[in-house]
């Protein structure tokens, strides 16, 4: 089972990205859960969302305490949230950032492998808005093989309708530009 935690700010679409990953996984015939950190959402406040993906039915209803993957939609969150909390030893953190791995490791408590991309710029270029959730999905699938790009794109089609193409373009650009630490 792969467990993912997504950090964002209210309004950035963290919950939607969890939904899309879960949907894509289910589309691939896997079992998945996608869920928010429950409670009233407030625009701007730090929020988390979770995904579980497995080949067999998932019998777990607790929160995700030890993620395999963490996705950070907004670089400023690194200042306020310990995004690597509970991360598994061989875990991966996918961050929207203009910084380098070394810079991040020297500034924050992140010791695991990282994948980095300037998702804000990509989102602004493609969507005209700094909403990075779909962009960061491109980074996620570059860095991990939790779901494949086709099923993600289909899930985006279903979720976004007319604005799906733009989101898929952002995703694809992020997929290309993401630097994955080896």
């Amino acid at each position, binding site marked *: 089972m792969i467990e993912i935690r997504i950090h964002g700010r209210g309004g950035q679409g963290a919950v939607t990205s*969890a*939904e899309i990953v*879960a*949907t894509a*996984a*289910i*589309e691939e015939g896997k*079992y*998945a*859960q*996608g*869920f*928010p950190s*429950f*409670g*009233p959402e407030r625009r701007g406040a730090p929020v988390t969302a979770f995904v579980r993906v497995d080949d067999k039915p*998932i*019998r*777990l*209803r*607790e*929160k995700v*305490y030890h993620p395999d993957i963490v996705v950070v939609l907004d670089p400023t969150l690194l200042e306020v949230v310990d995004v690597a909390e509970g991360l598994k030893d061989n875990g991966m953190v996918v961050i929207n950032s203009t910084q380098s791995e070394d810079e991040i490791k020297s500034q924050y408590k992140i010791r695991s492998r990282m994948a980095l991309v300037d998702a804000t710029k990509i989102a602004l270029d493609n969507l005209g808005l700094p909403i990075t959730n779909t962009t960061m999905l491109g980074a996620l699938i570059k860095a991990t093989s939790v779901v494949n790009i086709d099923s993600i794109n289909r*899930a985006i089609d279903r979720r976004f309708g007319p604005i799906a193409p733009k989101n898929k373009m952002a995703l694809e650009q992020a997929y290309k530009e993401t630097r994955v630490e080896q």
Partner: protein
Amino acid sequence: MGVRVAMEVSIAAAEAAKLADVDVIAAYPITPQTHIVEHLAELVADGELDAEYVPVESEHSALSACIGSSAAGARTFTATCAQGLALMHEILFIASALRTPIVMMVVNRALSAPINIWNDHSDIMAERDCGWIQTFAENGQEVFDLTLHAFRVAEDHRVLLPIMVNLDGFILSHMIEPIDIPEKEEVRRYLPEFKPAMRLDPDRPISMGPVGIPEVYTEAKKQLDEALVASKGPIIQAWDEFGKIFGRHYKPVETYRCEDAEVLLLTMGSISETAMTAVDIMREKGVSVGLIRLRLWRPFPLDELRAAVKGADTLAVVDRAVSTGGPGGPVCSEVRSALFGLPNRPKVLGFIAGLGGRDVTLEMFEEMVNQSIEYAKEGKEQFYELVGVREL
């Protein structure tokens, strides 16, 4: 053949109501129930569901309108939770006494105060004696399935009682999961059109809800109690038939690795899934543990429960609500009284966990089981304890 789709569980509940071709939905928004009725409102607005959507001004009126619509002969659906369910309290008893087969999703949430929108079972436990059939779902598929089952049972002329389908707030309601959505034709085969046994019809005028004088009130209560107890047969039958058509099987009491188990956990709702995984982990460690999941809460599955605990030494009941000032959690108290006098009954230990959104984790189940084994060794049967409460 139906399709397997990723879907929020609340949407799955609404889709089930749509496939049931409900005639009237009367509901009031309350977190975390809203997604169900929002989706139904959309379906009605888009013309995908031919129903009257009555956006009432309170839950009290929601259920009152549901009684009116059901009495008029319409297939009727609503959803609520917590304070909303509490506001319906008075009307719940009337809906069952008038024998109006309403289907209601209860998206379980803690009761105030302090105000808390998160999951536990304090809302439903406060309404356990209201004369409704009450089932509990553990995952999204079950929410969908139990909703269809609810219509089938409620409208069965041998039953004619309202039903609550319970699903845990957020933990289930806001979860994206794979849901198998059957074909319309399959649903139609399982769920025939609603044929009311009586209705408000000017051509055959009846009076519903007359004054029950002391000479008749006892008999009226007896009639309702008998009806609720007797509904177990049709409930099980409807599950059996569901299994035949859709391939998913349900029982009033479901067991997991209970064979030869010395210690049994007993749970209701979505934490049962975590508990199953906890049982797997403990079994691997050599602990002789199994799990009993109550799917049917009303009518209480007395015989099934007694059969399920047979041979076990210790039974740890996990409640999701406090019976304040009482002798234990509501489920534990009922289980105890159900087993009272049973020869060689297990020792019953009460645990209360997961109040107001507090997570119930794998570790907590292990703790409860270890604690129970210890208590059993000491020969102790405590009434209850709050798992993880801070004693500072």
